[in-house]
């Protein structure tokens, strides 16, 4: 997927200059831009949030991304991350995958109940994320963006032998999926950024 593109870019860039493999900070183009403490739109612009402190947002790569999805991180996405889904339409996948892939993440459908959305996310982790174990910790009702939404808490063991923990707050509005998802290493990183996530969720607004 896009990983190959990133790798090829990296090889290409490095080959041009000897002794540049340990390129330091600030050289070259980072994939990330800072998000400061003010209201920003995320994903395809349908939703806006205010982070309580600066985060790093991943730049969109044209033609590679699903426009409704956006990723943020504080310490690097292996350690923590917030993902926004802003109006994913019914009948669509939340990741790009080959139609002929043996194992697939299911499509989102507007008539999905919260347990079904949770199952779709679990599938994402197991099929694409390399999770070897996945525990649902809770599914409960929670208002979100003015609608009757849900909160989904889970943890998963990945094939780097690290346990990660996550929380999703979401809702289906007008047949489209909106959610904010926080996933981080269970040791230290989840607790450290959970308050940020909660503040962001509280600040979230739909743009008309």
């Amino acid at each position, binding site marked *: *997927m*896009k*990983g*190959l*593109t*990133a*790798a*090829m870019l*990296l*090889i290409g*860039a*490095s*080959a041009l200059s*000897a*002794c*540049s*493999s*340990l*390129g*330091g*900070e*600030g*050289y*070259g*183009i*980072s*994939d*990330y*831009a*800072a998000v400061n403490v003010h209201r920003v739109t995320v994903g395809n612009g349908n939703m806006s949030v205010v982070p309580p402190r*600066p*985060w*790093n947002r*991943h730049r969109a790569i044209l033609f590679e991304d*699903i426009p409704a*999805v956006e*990723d943020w*991180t*504080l*310490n*690097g*996405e*292996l*350690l923590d*991350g917030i*993902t926004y889904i802003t109006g994913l339409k019914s009948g669509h996948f*939340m*990741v*790009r995958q080959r139609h002929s892939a043996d194992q697939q993440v299911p499509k989102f459908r507007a008539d999905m109940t919260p347990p079904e959305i949770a199952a779709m996310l679990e599938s994402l982790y197991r099929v*694409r994320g390399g999770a070897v174990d996945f525990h649902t910790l809770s599914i409960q009702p929670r208002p979100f963006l003015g609608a009757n939404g849900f909160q989904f808490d889970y943890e998963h063991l990945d094939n*780097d*032998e*690290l346990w990660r923990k996550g929380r999703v707050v979401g809702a289906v509005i007008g047949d489209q999926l909106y959610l904010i998802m926080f996933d981080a*290493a269970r*040791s*230290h*990183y989840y607790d*450290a950024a959970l308050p940020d996530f909660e503040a962001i969720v509280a600040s979230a607004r739909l743009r008309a």
Partner: protein
Amino acid sequence: MRKLGLTAALAATVALGACVQTKQYADVQFTPPEGDYKLLVLRPDVTVGSLTTGGMVEPRAEWTDEARANIIAALRAQQAGRGGNVTIIEHRNELPGVPEQELADVERLNFVVDESIVDAKYLGNYLPTKRGRGLDWTLGADAVKLGQQSGYDYALFLHAEDQVASGGRVALGLLGFAGCFIGFCAPNIGGAEQLDYASLVDLKTGKVVWFNVVDAASQVPGIKFGDLRTPQGAAQMVERLLGRMKPGQDVGRRQAIR
């Protein structure tokens, strides 16, 4: 779904040319340990293999043992110069007071943190919020617990990899992968290669206070940088990696002002 790209990117760093690079990052408050401190060196990952003509690496047990012994001796000597107590443990069940599984979990978290540091600081995927803040990562409460249970002040995670070109090696001029950062270490094609990194964790706070990578690549076989099989080579590696620990930004500034 951004993380989709991360691992491949990490796998594809390139080392070209004959250069010894080391770039270290330190926490802004970092002062290299001196005086009476207890340093724990965890399961140093050392291997030395022979690069055959075809580019395969043939692991040589006796070389690896020698290299490990040399590195450990060099570490002790270097740290003794600083006045600390160094304990080097080879197996997870060798640390009294700390259950094996707990140690394993700290190592795994450290590994992921190290990967993140490499990606953010060395592979160009810098995080704007961390700019100018030195080394801004932590292992958190689990590392602090490790320190309390074991009684150590610092933990050093060390990885040293050295390939020695055997006779008849042809420089292939190919791109090699320094894939060690994702846990898969591929031999670096192109001559003798030495790739070492170290991270130092302050067990009182859990923070990674110092990180360094030494990447000594040579395109021309026969030129050896600090052959780990010799005591001098190992000492050189340790010196490059650990010896020039620079104090962090704020400490440097304070000293300058004085």
